[in-house]
């Protein structure tokens, strides 16, 4: 039983098949970094593939990223032009509450964001010209469920040290376009 049953092409076990829209070997290596946060803001995983510029040390960088997501979430919830009752700015939002964003783009990178109902946040940073990554993030979430959550030795809320997860993630991320 998978959480995101909507994406039919996502099939885990034992070797996951890539969802549609991800060609293999076309022009891969577009991913820069991936962050996984739990709902209390602990960085469970930080993985980078291509990052020439580092302005801060790792823990400060992760805090800044979580802060950015938190504020952008309250920004979009307040900005939402389609809902009448938007609540107050800056009040912490539950996962799925209010209008959320799924991606933003600058001239040098594109950030894709997904939050699961349990508050796990996945952040993927890629080349700005890449396509929509909502399905890719669901696939990565499924990898996380398969190789991290189902691992009996994994203590929830601690950094992910699963070799199997990392290799599968690296393999999958190479195919992103």
């Amino acid at each position, binding site marked *: 039983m998978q959480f995101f049953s909507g994406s039919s092409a996502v099939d885990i076990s034992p070797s996951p098949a890539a969802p549609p829209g991800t060609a293999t070997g076309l022009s891969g290596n577009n991913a820069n970094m991936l962050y996984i946060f739990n709902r209390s803001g602990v960085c469970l995983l930080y993985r980078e593939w291509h990052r020439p510029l580092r*302005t801060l040390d790792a823990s400060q960088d992760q805090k800044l990223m979580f802060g950015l997501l938190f504020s952008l979430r309250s*920004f979009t919830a307040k*900005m939402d*032009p389609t809902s009448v009752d938007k609540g107050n*700015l800056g009040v912490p939002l539950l996962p799925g509450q209010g209008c959320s*964003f799924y991606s933003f783009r600058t001239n040098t*990178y594109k950030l894709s964001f997904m939050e699961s109902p349990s508050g796990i946040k996945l952040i993927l940073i890629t080349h700005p010209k890449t396509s929509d990554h909502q399905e890719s993030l669901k696939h990565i979430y499924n990898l996380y469920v398969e190789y991290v959550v189902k691992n009996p030795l994994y203590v929830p809320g601690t950094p992910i040290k699963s070799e199997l997860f990392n290799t599968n993630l690296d393999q999958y991320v190479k195919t992103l376009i």
Partner: protein
Amino acid sequence: MAAIYSLFIINKSGGLIFYKDYGSAGRMDTNDSLRLASLWHSMHAISQQLSPTTGCAGIELLQAHTFDLHCFQSLTGTKFFVVCEPGTLHMEALLKVIYELYTDYVLKNPFYEMEMPIRCELFDLNLSQEQKPNP
């Protein structure tokens, strides 16, 4: 231009100098629009810090589930952003047009003080005319 919900102009220190609503649900009061503007200013700055490569100029497009936000920053640091329906096209061009109107009718107005809220009749007039020809 029916698909546009609102337009914001922020000065280089994050203060809201112009805000126009084109029919978003639930009125936003003045304090909220000021807060959103300064929040956007800081989000824009933080996004440059987190860039994996050099030369990042901040968020250009934010895609939320119910709207898209397109942002344009001028060389002097004034930010223009429109909130529109998801998938609306040609917003970059529209922002450039608004920027031109700003330079023509706000900056060239001898009574306008820099970084202060925009109260220029000609700007408002031309802005509303800009919206009419487009379907």
